[in-house]
């Protein structure tokens, strides 16, 4: 494997304070599980990687996810990019600023070079807390740069595309076109014989599911994650049919042949490590 990382001068450790600012898991001692209503002791919950005893996977911030997957201190993020407001959409700049303050992120994706069990990868995580984890120009560009860097350095790519609320409406057609741009970036990476592991976490919908996230060589999903194209409410309203139980869950996607494996959060890092090992020698070319 390439040794480019060792020569890199600085590694960035994601600050804990970012995590603590999050509203999803309040600062008090206990959290109620959305699924089974059980009260969970926060310290315990954190130790269990934010998975309830009932199996419910809590939503993670990008940095929490990163800390669970990357080797400690190995993550070097790409240079930041910021959203423009190409349509002059009312309220968009304010929305961006509020999301930046809430999450400590520049936009909805945190991406860079990292190592997983010493294997260098491009690792990207989408964060739901940033405008629903929607894909605008910044997310599209950063992901594209991720795949391009991976082609240059012959690296595998791992993207956690959960939090994908889909397209970012406020950027209109520019947002739609990111679907093509990212799909093409995956296509070039794939044609270079390189590995892309796409991990679908809660929720992966719309324009994110219908572009790069569906194009992994290997597609993993966390249990219970909502995965689909049209939102369940839209499907219900359009068809006026009662949705079958478990509709659009990761289990449903597995049953219908859309994903390779369900992986529980505590096993995720090991699973990715294994998959990377199987592909250590790379593909053709």
């Amino acid at each position, binding site marked *: 494997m390439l040794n480019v990382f060792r020569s890199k001068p600085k590694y960035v450790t994601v600050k804990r304070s970012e995590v603590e600012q999050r509203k999803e898991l309040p600062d008090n001692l206990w959290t109620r599980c959305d699924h089974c209503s059980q009260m969970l002791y926060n310290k315990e919950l954190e130790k269990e990687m934010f998975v309830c005893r009932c199996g419910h996977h809590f939503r993670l911030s990008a940095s929490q996810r990163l800390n669970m997957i990357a080797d400690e201190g190995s993550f070097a993020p790409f*240079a930041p990019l910021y959203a423009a407001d190409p349509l002059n959409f009312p309220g968009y700049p304010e929305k961006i600023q509020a999301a930046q303050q809430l999450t400590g992120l520049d936009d909805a994706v945190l991406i860079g070079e990292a190592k997983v069990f010493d294997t260098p990868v491009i690792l990207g995580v989408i964060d739901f807390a940033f405008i629903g984890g929607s894909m605008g120009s910044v997310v599209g560009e950063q992901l594209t740069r991720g795949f391009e860097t991976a082609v240059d350095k012959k690296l595998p790519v791992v993207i956690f595309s959960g939090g994908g609320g889909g397209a970012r409406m406020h950027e209109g057609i520019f*947002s739609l076109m*990111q679907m093509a741009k990212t799909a*093409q970036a995956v296509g070039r990476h794939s044609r270079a014989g390189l590995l892309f592991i796409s991990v679908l976490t809660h929720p992966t919908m719309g324009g994110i599911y219908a572009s790069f996230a569906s194009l992994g060589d290997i597609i993993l999903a966390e249990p219970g994650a909502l995965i*689909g194209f049209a939102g369940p409410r839209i499907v219900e309203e*359009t*068809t006026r049919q009662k949705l079958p139980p478990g509709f659009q869950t990761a289990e449903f996607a597995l049953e219908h042949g859309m994903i390779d494996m369900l992986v529980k959060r505590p096993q995720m890092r090991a699973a990715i490590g294994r998959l990377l090992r199987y592909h250590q020698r790379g593909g053709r070319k």
Partner: protein
Amino acid sequence: MTQVFEWERPLVELEQRIADLHRFVADHGIDCEKELAELEHRAERLRKDIYENLTPFQRVMMARHPKRPTTLDYISMLLDEFDEFHGDRTYRDDGAIVGGVGTFEGTPVTVIGPQKGRDTKENLARNFGLPHPEGYRKALRLMKQAEKFGRPIITFIDVVGAYPGIQAEERGQGLVIAQCIEEMSFIRTPILCIITGEGGSGGALAIGVGDRILMLEHAWYSVISPEMCATILWRDSARAPQAAELLRLTPADLLKFGIIDDVITEPIGGAHRDHAVMGQQMRAFIRRYLAEICKVPVDRLVEERLARFRAIGKFTTERMPIDA
């Protein structure tokens, strides 16, 4: 009876009066030339006034006019001969997307496009032009076939979106759209995409990655329909006209943004008013752009196609100032 929009009513009434007067002149042999000329002049001014100042949402309504030419209409008007091919070879034939092979002015081409129905019966059979995954799979199959035989591809795009249904989700709607977008990007044959009516989000993009992207004058193309956008923003789909303004979904906007290459003008009052004239206009544009892309060596064509989409996106390296 053709559906008349509210904003067209003064014009339609005036046109009716002119027609009545013509009939009167013919029947009674009375000379009303001066009156007629004046009425015609007024109608002309009114036509210009109405159709050159359509709001974005009025354009959306025009794009949805039930008499607007469909993919099969364009095929019968433009191709010398045509055979429709069916099925995705996996599950079923989806009537909401049609495709096949024919010749355009002597050149074999593959043509693909969503198909809306003309009446309730046909609309039920075609699911109101809302494709299932098998429709997109058929489209992809026909594109691969075109690539194998070095045939150019023309896609006509008029789809409000991929069908949001239970079975559609079970069969991987999102996944298939992703595959279409990805594969179409790398297909080694010229692709001409024409947005003829509605360009609704991923369901349109799935057959919308090409070397030239053209758009009719009264078509729209957006990441989300104005109704859905209004529902998200204000929980009120009745505010769709306002959302249509915000989304910048008109051909003029998209030309300015560099998303499309050219705008095909429609007969005055819209394509539905005169299919034949629309067909002629369309023919001229297809002839010109097809010739243009068929000249380019295929390696360069694919590189340029990828480069075009690679360049789309607006961002900065500085935080956005709030008061901007």
